[in-house]
Structures are given as C-alpha cells and as structure tokens.
C-alpha cells in the first residue's frame, strides 16, 4: 500500500518501533561468522579492543541520507487509511576517497532516475537508469588544538557543520563514535589525539597552554595501551596482533618449571623433598588385596616359577 509522504500524518507521537535495521543485521551476521571460528586470530586480540569493536558493531549509525520515521503509525487522509511506518536506512557506497577525508558520515549514494523524463514516450522510450549521487566536497584547512597542527583535508558541508556544533575539530573527533566518523583518516586522527593526550606530549615549552589542554580534554584520557588500539579496523588490529606475537620470543619452559617448583617448596606440597626430609613418614605401599586370601596357594607356585626361570 503505497502512500505519498506529503499526505501522511503521525498518529502516535514519537513512539518508534524498535527494530534492528538491515545494515546493522548485516554487520552482526558478518562479524558473528568471524568470531564463530575459535581458531581465528580475533580471539587473541586484547579484551578492551574486542569490547569496543562489538560496541561499534551493535551501535546504530546516525541517519545521514534519510529521515527515520518519527512515529509508528501514520494516517493517510487522502486514501483514508492507517499505515505502519518502516525504517529502511539508505546506506551509501564506501569509497577510498572517503577514507582519506572527513565526510561526516556522507557517502556516495546510488539511486534510480527516469531517463528522458519530459520527452514523449512515442519519440523516446523512458527507462529507469541508475545514478550515483556524490557529496559536494571541498578542500579546507582545519586546526587541531591537541596536535597543534593545520590539516588540509577534503570535507563536506555536513562535516563542517558538525565541527561547529562540537566547538572544534578536536571535540568533534573525540566525541563522535567511530561508526559515525566513517573514515580511516578520522579514526587514525582520533588514535593520534588520544595517544598525545595520554602521553602529554603536547606544548612541551608552553606550560600555561599545556595545563589548559590538560584540563579541557581531561575526560578523554584513557590508558596508553588502549589508546593505541583505538580506531583500528579488525584486519588492522589482527595484523598488529600478529606482528606483536612474531616479535615477542616465547618464554623457555625452564623458567616456568623453576617457578612452579619454588611455589611447591614454599607451600610444602613437593612430594620428593618431603620424602627426603622425613623418612619416618608413612610410606605409600602397593595394595595387597587378595594376597591374604590366595597367597597361601599362589606364593609357593610363584616362587617355584621364579627359581626355575633364574
């Protein structure tokens, strides 16, 4: 039942149906397949990275190219029917250029248009042809307060607006989720900013400025070993993990055995040393079960056999 959007009036105010959108379902399914393999490298990744990664996977992307419905039901006064509104996100195509810039979540969107719309069908047939809608991009120079650097990047108008809303590039990058930044460059910027904040390697000469930055971004400081994993894609993180494993030599077993022996000696649970120390202690003997009953008959036979073979 198709209805024109202009005719629709919300029936229920601000109560939307809780649904898992198709893009989120796809993300979950894809990652579930990866994590189902118990031998995969992903299980050796640090725990904090895995937690953050799954939080990203399970979070909703901020709508950019569509407006989500504001209520569950709407009334079409023209057709005089009530319809249920659905949330079908329009997710664009990810591009390598988008990974280098700050597009604020915008992407290249594929749509369909009518060819030759104002020509007579008799003259020229009309077809539905695909069309790619590209974001309006511009090159700007942005200033990062933490890094104290000017950055020349490709941005969209939406990204500029978001930066203004967050009162600066640094706050925009640090406050936004990775899924909304939607670019490898922005994620690496985030990682670099967090690392700089953690190690306090900003404004080494200017103490006043340093104290100002420290107070301003105090909420974003996280441990360094976590900060260096922020914003890495799953494959990048896996590569990092494998590099770390390759560069660390395994520990010789002799140290492990030494430690365990020392522990046992300290606890007094080492059997060999105990036996050496007090020989009067009860000895462990093998079971003589049955010897009492049949020993009378069997022992002489055994003795004979033994003497015969010797």
């Amino acid at each position: 039942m198709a209805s024109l959007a202009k005719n629709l009036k919300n029936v229920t105010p601000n109560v939307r149906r809780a649904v898992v959108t198709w893009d989120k379902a796809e993300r979950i399914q894809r990652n579930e397949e990866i994590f189902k393999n118990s031998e995969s490298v992903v299980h050796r990744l640090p725990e904090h990275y895995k937690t953050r990664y799954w939080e990203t996977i399970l979070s909703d992307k901020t709508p950019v190219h569509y407006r989500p419905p504001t209520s569950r039901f709407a009334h079409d006064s023209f057709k005089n029917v009530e319809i249920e509104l659905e949330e079908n996100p329009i997710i664009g195509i990810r591009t390598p250029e988008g990974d280098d810039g700050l597009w604020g979540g915008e992407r290249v969107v594929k749509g369909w248009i009518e060819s030759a719309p104002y020509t007579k069908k008799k003259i020229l047939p009309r077809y539905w042809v695909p069309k790619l809608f590209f974001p309006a991009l511009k090159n700007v120079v942005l200033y990062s307060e933490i890094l104290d650097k000017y950055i020349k990047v490709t941005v969209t108008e939406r990204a500029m607006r978001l930066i203004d809303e967050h009162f600066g590039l640094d706050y925009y990058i640090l406050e936004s989720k990775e899924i909304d930044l939607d670019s490898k460059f922005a994620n690496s910027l985030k990682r670099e900013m967090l690392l700089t904040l953690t190690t306090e390697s900003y404004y080494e000469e200017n103490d006043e400025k340093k104290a100002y930055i420290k107070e301003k971004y105090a909420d974003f400081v996280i441990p360094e070993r976590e900060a260096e994993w922020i914003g890495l894609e799953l494959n990048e993180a896996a590569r990092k993990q494998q590099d770390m494993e390759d560069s660390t030599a395994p520990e010789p077993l002799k140290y492990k055995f030494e430690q365990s022996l020392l522990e046992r000696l300290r606890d007094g649970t080492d059997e060999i040393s105990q036996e050496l120390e007090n020989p009067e202690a009860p000895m462990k003997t093998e079971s003589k079960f049955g010897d009492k009953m049949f020993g009378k008959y069997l022992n002489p036979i055994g003795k004979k056999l033994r003497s015969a073979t010797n």
Partner: protein
Amino acid sequence: MQNFDFTNFHSLRFFKSTMWRSLPSLVSSAVRSQNAVNTRFSSTMKQFFDDEANFGKAELRPKHRPGRSWTAEELRLKSNSDLHKLWYVCLKERNMLITMKKAHTSRARNMPNPERLDRVHETMDRIESVVHERNDAVFRLETGESAAPRKRTITSFAGFTYQKQATEHFAPPQLGQKEYETPYLDDDAYVMQKLWQEKEFMKNRDRLDDEKRRAARTEDMDRFKRGAPRVFNR
C-alpha cells in the same frame, strides 16, 4: 678404493654383460681394472653387497629372513649414542639393499625379501622421530620454541586460511610483503568462500545420499538385476 665408489650406481653397468652368479668376481675384476692394483675382493668391499649365499635366490632361508623393525617404544629406551650407532647400521644396510635392488632390477630379477628395505625405512623414520622428540624437549626447555620449523597462519587472496611454514630471509619483509591472517575478508574472497562452502556442503550431502542408497541395496538386487521394491504409499 680411492676413486671407486660402490654406492654409485653407475659402477653397476660393469655387470651388464656377465652372468648373475659371477657377481663378486666381476666386481673384483672391475676394481682391478680401475685401480690397476691386484687387490682382492676384501671384506670391506663385501659390506656394500648382500651375502653371496643370497644371490639369485627367490627367498632367503628362514634363519636369514628379516625380523620386524624397531618400534618407537624400544628406541625411546636407547641413549643418544646408541641411536647414532643404530642409524649408521641402518644406513649401511639401506645402502646395501638399494644396491642389490638396482642390480636385480637391471637383470630383470626379483630381489629376495624386498621387505627388508621397508623394515629399514621404518626403523630409520622412527629413529628420526625419536631424536626429534628429544630435540624438541630440549628446545622447549631452553628456548621455548619447538624444534620443528615455525608455522604462520595466513589467508590467501581467495579467503582460504591455512598454515604456512615460515622461511628465513636476510632482511625483514618490506611493507605490504608480509602475509597475515585477515579475519574480515574483502567482497570477492567472501563470495568465493560462500560458494566454496556451498559446493562442499552439496558434495557431502550427495556422498551421504550415495552411501545410504548403497547400504539399502540387498544381494538380490545385484544378483537378479532388480530395483528396489516400489513403495508408493510410504
């Protein structure tokens, strides 16, 4: 035997034109012609060949027939020097047997008890595995690594993840040269894997189906060329 190596099979072409029974004399004549010294076919030389009594026989006498090969459990009880000695005993025996096999093959005969070669091979494999076990234990204790070459898990362009033996290089790998395990496959590899899994699944399903049908066939069906009883109202 300065330059004359009996382990070299090319020396065997001297045998070609003579009768089988005269093998040792032929060998000695070959030695004589090579060295131009009138040496006898000494006991040292004889070690390269089988016992003369075994020449041209269909099967060895029961007393000389080979026993079984050494088991890994027995070899584990031996010291390293004993294993070393046993290895060279086996090596000599293997060399001798291969020589004899080649000689027999060249004159279109069957070698008596060729299973001797298998027994020696089995023993040598087991010695190698036992020595590897000991080596491995020492390596793990002292360095923490296995004595076996290190393996890395990598993902191919088509999305297959497998173990690959690490190789030595003079320099660390260039950027983008090193192979990694990549859990999140790109679109092509992902589709490839999906199709591959589907194909494997269908192959397995058909195999199980075939097995089931074969198991359901009775002797009568094969004998009288009859199909299965038709049951329409199943």
